[in-house]
């Protein structure tokens, strides 16, 4: 009855087999010890069952050395096995936590009860994510409402998606195919239905898909349009920093703050500058930027970030 039940999902990412190896190592250890202990209980139970009413137990002689030796053995052996698992685990954990520098960045916004995906080129999808095979993909994720969790069993990856914060995760799909995408953090009434598909394509097919018709795409404003529509450009101008800092070349730079700190201008910083402008004031400016909290959706903010990231200083022009 269970023939076609996948008792273990297929491995479709570079990290999947590494995680599975550790999993099966743990499974081996667990099976060994649970069977050992179950058998010991049965054996000892049968061997030392009371056969007649007058039978007493035989305790090991007082202060027996054997007892100390035994106790040390069964503390040290589990400890050593656990340390092997620890070191092994740390290695994979750090690989999983550090996206390669050349990863393509996608954006994910979770919302009761759907996943919204934005491609770096501006293409948007809902509950579907098309990605090229063999390329590291980094996801920068946030939520509009409650906590969700982005889970693709075939990739063995899972990361919570939090409101008010960006979390990241990366993977490299190594097999063309269509894989289930779930929300694995309980998020309200229709949590069970929050999911979709990750479609892994050959790179050229992916390019063709990107270029293809955008039917079914809801209308939305791009970052450049928002920048003008929200009047960001009245203060942030490309030619003068009189009222507000020039944003060209901002992304990835170190920014000096009024209180003397220096922070890296990453996505989280830019998001905070828009939503919570008073939190970090750029040195030399007045805190006049209005907050856009509640006026922009997380998707809009991502569009703006993407737009600002694209504002690169032309080659050779010093700022």
């Amino acid at each position, binding site marked *: 009855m269970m023939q076609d039940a996948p008792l273990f999902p297929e491995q479709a990412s570079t990290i999947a087999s590494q995680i599975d190896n550790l999993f099966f190592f743990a499974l081996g250890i*667990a099976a060994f010890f649970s069977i050992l*202990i179950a058998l010991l209980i049965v054996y000892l139970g049968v061997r030392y069952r009371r056969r007649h009413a007058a039978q007493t137990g035989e305790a090991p002689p007082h202060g027996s050395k054997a007892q100390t030796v035994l106790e040390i053995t*069964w503390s040290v052996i589990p400890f050593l096995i656990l340390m092997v698992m*620890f070191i092994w685990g740390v290695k*994979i954990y750090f690989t999983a936590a550090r996206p390669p520098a050349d990863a393509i960045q996608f954006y994910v916004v979770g919302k009761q009860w759907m996943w919204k995906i934005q491609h770096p080129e501006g293409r948007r999808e809902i509950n579907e994510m098309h990605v090229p095979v063999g390329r590291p993909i980094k996801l920068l994720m946030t939520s509009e409402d409650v906590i969700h969790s982005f889970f693709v069993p075939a990739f063995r990856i899972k990361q919570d998606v939090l409101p008010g914060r960006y979390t990241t995760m990366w993977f490299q799909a190594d097999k063309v195919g269509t894989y289930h995408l779930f929300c694995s953090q309980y998020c309200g009434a229709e949590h069970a239905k929050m999911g979709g598909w990750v479609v892994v394509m050959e790179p050229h097919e992916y390019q063709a898909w990107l270029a293809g018709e955008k039917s079914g795409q809801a209308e939305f404003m791009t970052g450049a349009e928002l920048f003008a529509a929200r009047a960001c450009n009245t203060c942030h101008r490309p030619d003068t920093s009189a009222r507000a800092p020039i944003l060209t070349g901002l992304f990835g730079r170190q920014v000096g703050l009024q209180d003397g700190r220096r922070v890296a201008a990453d996505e989280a910083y830019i998001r905070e500058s828009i939503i919570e402008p008073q939190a970090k004031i750029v040195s030399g400016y007045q805190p006049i930027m209005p907050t856009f909290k509640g006026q922009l959706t997380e998707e809009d903010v991502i569009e703006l970030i993407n737009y600002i990231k694209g504002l690169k200083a032309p080659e050779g022009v010093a700022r």
Partner: protein
Amino acid sequence: MSEHAHKTPFIRKYIFSTDHKVIGIQFLMMSLFFMIIGGLLAMMVRWQLGFPEKAMPLGTLFPDKLMPEGHMGPEFYNAVFTMHASIMIFLVIIPILAGAFGNFLVPLMIGARDMAYPKLNMLSFWVAVPGGLLMASSFFTDTGAAATGWTAYPPLSAVADYTGVTAGQSMWIGAVLIVGTASIMGAVNYITTIINMRAPGMHLFRMPLTIWALFITAILQLLATPVLASVMGMLLFDRTLGTHFFAPVGGGQVLMFQHMFWFYSHPAVYIMILPAMGFVSDILATFSRKPIFGYKAMAFSIMGIAGLGFIVWGHHMFQSGMNPLLGTTFMASTMVIAVPSAIKTFNWLGTIWRGSIRFTPAMLNALAFVSTFIVGGLSGIFMASTPVDMFIHDTYFIVAHIHYVLFGGSLFGVFAAINYWYPKMFGRMMNEAVNTVHFILTFIFFNLTFFPMHMLGMAGHMRRIADPTAYDFLKPLQPLNEFITINALILGAVQVLFAGNFIISLFAGKKAERNPWHANSLEWVAPSPPPHGNFETIPTVYHGPYEFSVPGVVEDYLPQDRPAPGGAPSHTPSLSTARA
């Protein structure tokens, strides 16, 4: 003492009693009552997961709003699984271990006449009851009971719109605050009583492991529960007063809730297992007629588990977006906490080794505890490895783990303890044959119910979903879900044996002697059931509680209040300390 008790009016004797034994039994009855409710909720959860498209038997008895034509909608399902877990944790396992057995056993086993603060003790019960009723009654509010999972993560729990539950969620928070307060009152009492009121000669290292476990548990409760109370208070303010502790719109931090919640709830999982470990240690020794193997190692490993228990909470949050360096430290501490658990397991085996084992129902349940707890502990190691946890977090693997430790561990411990101490509590014996059958069936159907959940988890089946057939990916697993449901229903039905035996034995059980199991600890010195004040005279303690099969002693046990006959060669450290 006892004539005095006769004159006490019914209400002072059985309802607003300050006698620790009555309060213990009251907690026992309350927890068993909620266990029935929690169990029925579990059956409903399983029905929905096994047969989402079939109407639930008797489902039409529910109001149409909750179960149109006997079908559970996702909103109601979510409330049901949330309340199942909340009731089982806050109103069953914690109160039955600490409240029922803690109260009943602490004074008796240390040789005291009552708790240090009998009035506070009574208050603790009468605070817990309205807390429990508040939680359960939230089902009857307009928008239903809490539906955020027992972990109640904000913003889901902080903003009513996200779940549609208004009053129910706030009542849930209030109830957790109230039962938390009750358990702090209990903890203060146990700690004071154990420190100050031990019978003469009852050194710390002559205390039964049950008392050690209850003592350390009380310390955990005292230190951790206030954190739960504050986090629930903040959540309540967010819901009702418009504060933004956990709301990002107001600059709040959603993760702060999780840190505080698990700072309580990880120690809380030890609150839910340490007492059972204590009971099992005593029961294994008694029915093997052997001293516990490595008494001091056992006591120290309880302390070790409790101490380490405060620095592992982050293992519930590996996927929440924590810095990998922090994650690594939580991974290390979690791995280390498995070591004292391993020590305990092997010491239990060492205890039955070369014993003279009597397979009473109490003993059978205690042995089941050892074999299932180890499975739960070992599955914990999978989840402690962060990369593996990345895959299995929030899947049925976690559900399997929880149930192997809480049902396989705590609840088998409770069954063992009820079987063992029932004669002392009620002065009558339970029917052993019925309880043996109950044990065998429970053990079999427990494993058939929960073991396959590991497989579901490995297959990527998420937890807390109302309809597993919503995904193509999970459809092939549906036969396994049905299999689990059928076994779960049988497991539930089998409990009728125990309940029936429990009730009938109250009236028709064979009268119990003082010491039916020939055990050594002090509760067996008192009459069954002990009168108000417990002991005719306060016993003097001469040695530890595990003097079984001492060479040179005629019987195969030597109660703590009986000195070793001169010259009898001793074989356990506790006995030799006593003589030194």
